[in-house]
């Protein structure tokens, strides 16, 4: 029981390790906000989704990216599952504001409300998949570029505390499909997730 608190310590380390965010210039091309609404409503109409992902993490401490791949599943409105298959099977399920990470028989459960610093990592993807513009705008400054056929959302955390961890999230897509998600952390680390429709 009391070990619960201990188990979540590491998550708390995240915010402790933050550096001031380098304010990168955001390349934003003004686009009609009608397109954002259309993309959002297209996304909102999808109840479920299943895509394959390849994720590359570029860490300051390593001179090469760390790669992983697997499957991403989404069920409206708030269930998101990231199932990593390579290099090691592991699953991460976000449901009802609670994040559950399972690897083998080990399971960690995290209440997002208690660890707001994790929110940008997961909520950016969930809210976009849900077409939930309200939720996106509560957490981020939202910047839409491109067209319905080829769009880019740039999300910058509104909360200055959160901005110390995540500098920005960039999501690219076409109509109701997400094509890539790039998360740039304040300390220079970066992850790029490329998505494509899952095979049968």
């Amino acid at each position, binding site marked *: 029981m009391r*070990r619960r608190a201990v188990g979540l*310590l590491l998550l*708390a380390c995240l915010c402790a390790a933050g550096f001031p965010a380098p304010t990168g210039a955001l390349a934003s091309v003004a686009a009609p906000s009608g397109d954002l609404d259309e993309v959002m409503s297209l996304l909102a109409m999808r109840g479920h989704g299943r895509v394959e992902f390849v994720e590359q993490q570029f860490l300051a401490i*390593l001179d*090469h990216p760390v790669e992983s791949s697997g499957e991403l599943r989404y069920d409206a409105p708030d269930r998101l599952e990231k199932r990593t298959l390579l290099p090691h099977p592991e699953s991460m399920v976000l449901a009802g504001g609670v994040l559950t990470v399972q690897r083998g028989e080990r399971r*960690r*459960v995290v209440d997002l409300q208690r660890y707001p610093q994790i929110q940008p990592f997961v909520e950016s993807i969930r809210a976009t998949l849900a077409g939930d513009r309200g939720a996106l705008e509560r957490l981020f400054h939202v910047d839409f570029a491109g067209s319905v056929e080829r769009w880019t959302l740039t999300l910058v955390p509104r909360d200055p505390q959160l901005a110390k961890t995540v500098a920005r999230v960039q999501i690219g897509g076409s109509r109701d499909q997400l094509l890539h998600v790039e998360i740039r952390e304040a300390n220079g680390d970066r992850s790029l997730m490329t998505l494509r429709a899952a095979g049968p």
Partner: protein
Amino acid sequence: MNRQRAGIAALWLCCLAVAAVIVARAHYITDLSAFLPAAPTPTQQLLVDQLRNGPASRLILIAIEQGDAGTRARVSAAMAARLRRDAQFSSVNNGEPLTAQRDRDFLFQHRYLLSDRVSAARFSAAGLHAAIEDTIEGLASPAGLMLKSLLPQDPTGEMLHIIDQLERTPGPATRDGVWISSGGERALMVAQTAAGGSDTDAQASAIGAVRAAFAAAVRGSSAGGAKAVQLTLSGPGVFAVAARAKIERAAVRLSIAGGLLVVTLLFTVYRSLPALALGLAPVVSGAVVGIAAVALGFGAVHGITLGFGITLIGESVDYSIYFFVQSRRLPQQQAGGLSWQRAWWPTVRLGMLTSVCGFASLLPSGFPGLAQLGLYSISGLIAAALVTRYVLPALLPAGLVIHDVTPLGLRAARLLLPARRLRGSRLAASCVALAGLALAVLHGHEATLWNRELAALSPISRADQDADAQLRSDLGAADVRDLVIIPGPTLESALEAAEHAAPALQSLVDARVIGGFDSPVNYLPSAAAEEARRSGLPDAARLRENLRQAATDLGLRTELLQPFLSDVEAARHAPLVGVQDLQGTSLRAGFDALILHQRDRWNALLPLHPPLEAQAVDTARVRAALERAQIPEARVLDLKQESDALYAGYLSEAIRLSLAGIVAILVLLLATLRSPLRVARVLAPLLLAVLCVAAALALFEVQLTILHLVGMLLIVAVGSNYALFFDRQASLHEARSESLTLASLLIANASTVMGFGLLSFSRVPVLVALGTTVAPGAFLALLFAAVLSRTEPLRSHA
């Protein structure tokens, strides 16, 4: 003569006064030690210590229900804040990360002494390569989110390893900052009291503090819905307090109700206030002397003895009934008739001695509660009988005449007439048939006849036990069933042995014999282990060189790992971590919970978790593994099995002792009555009554407990008087006195049946067991004794 009477009365009052002083000064115990063995084996001693004062015994499980989630969370936080300031509690946890920062700092600062993976090999070039490669692989996973920021300081991942070791069982989920049940309908909290679980007064006070904190939190909440929020408490201390209150309430209420019933009955019969008052003298004397005897004999009186004792000497009310009813004819027959003392006292004395033989069988019991009940009953009955014999005649005002109950006896005799016409072989055949039928029923239920679980004695209702189980599963605090206990002469030696056992237990985890295990060394290693780890750390130059070699093909930018190099160097010169360093972190409570200090030794407790697929741990395989690992001092303790075995031991011992008691009664009767036939006539109705009651209970699917057994002894004790009176009556050859005898027995029987019948309506299972056994049993004993008696059918009286 008058002076002699005054002397007797004075002597009686003196004895009573001395006994009353002893009673007033006696030490009363209300904890569960009445159920614990008086002379425990070492394993039992561990069990007893765990049950009485172990960390599990000090938990109060708290649930906040109803209302809305936000209100529950606010109430939980407000309650916890208040309870944390209360010295009665050693820890209060509701999921709020209060000590998280300090815990994290402590673990991180001492990671190279606390992690059991630290060794010279791990910090060699090859070891570092493997460890860092592992960490980098971990980065690719979602959990990598947690690892990444620590990489420059902890590239070998010791911090995550320590946390994994500590967090073997997942705790409850949190919402709105506090623990909640899996369905989210309850906010959860766990408070640990400073006092032991067996200190029922302290537990009651702690529970009061929890309730007060809840009330204050609800009052202080501005939300309108706060009034709807409800509090549910559970845990060993909560149960102990509730049980005590319940037994006290039930005992008081039932004693008053039973007392009123008996007094009403006696007054209806006697129609004389002085007779009524005198009639209660033997009971009161017996109760006081009984408690005094227990206080002198055992040093302290268990609550259970008080609770049941009074009911056990219900027989003493009978003595005065016999005295009054049967002496009634004396005024008219003073010339020729025998006095009551001469005509009936020997019979009452024999009945009393029979009961004493029965209850004496409880005396050698290893179950302190039973042994005390035995002594209490014996001394109480002897005192009551002596008061009836010597004090009542002395106190009896001249000319006191009670209402004539002869008509009652005559009516009863007429009712019995048809049954009594059965004589000789047909009577014997009927008895044998009835006994055979009862035995057949008992044989049919043999497998389930006795309840051998300690829980059978628990005064806690099934519903409360279920609520407790629910709360425990919500908290992920399953009642620990299996423990490995490793003793040592010092704390250090116990910790070293626990470290020695860890690989054997880990192999059991891998083989899925157990799901996991906790160990105090996860919180604090032995000094020897810390020393070994510290000396395994390479010096700065070597570590730099090892890291350089390890990093070559890992793509690691070693220049960013400077924090790692300086942390290891600091650890090489840091002092070892001791118990005092845990102070101020939540780890202290965790460590203390797994260490048991007995007088001359320390025990490391390693709770085992059952494997995912199974409910229970195969303790035989655990024992075998520990034996193979050559840890002979380690003991595997299955708490439930051990406590059930303890109770089952009491039960079979009590059954054996009761049978010995029956044999003693047989010998006593043979020696006194000097006729096997008469002994058979006396014993047959008693044994028949016991068999019939046992069979009836079995038919109603009631599993017999130790209290049913005590009830059966009581049937024999009370019933033996009935049978002996009929036996004596037969030798008097006097029809008129038979109706009086019958009337006195009926009245005595009615008071017993009423008193115990009342217990059947109690909500305390042990009282119900006693009531449902004795009430029907006493009635049957009278019926069978009357039918089997040798008396010729009454001639009608003109």
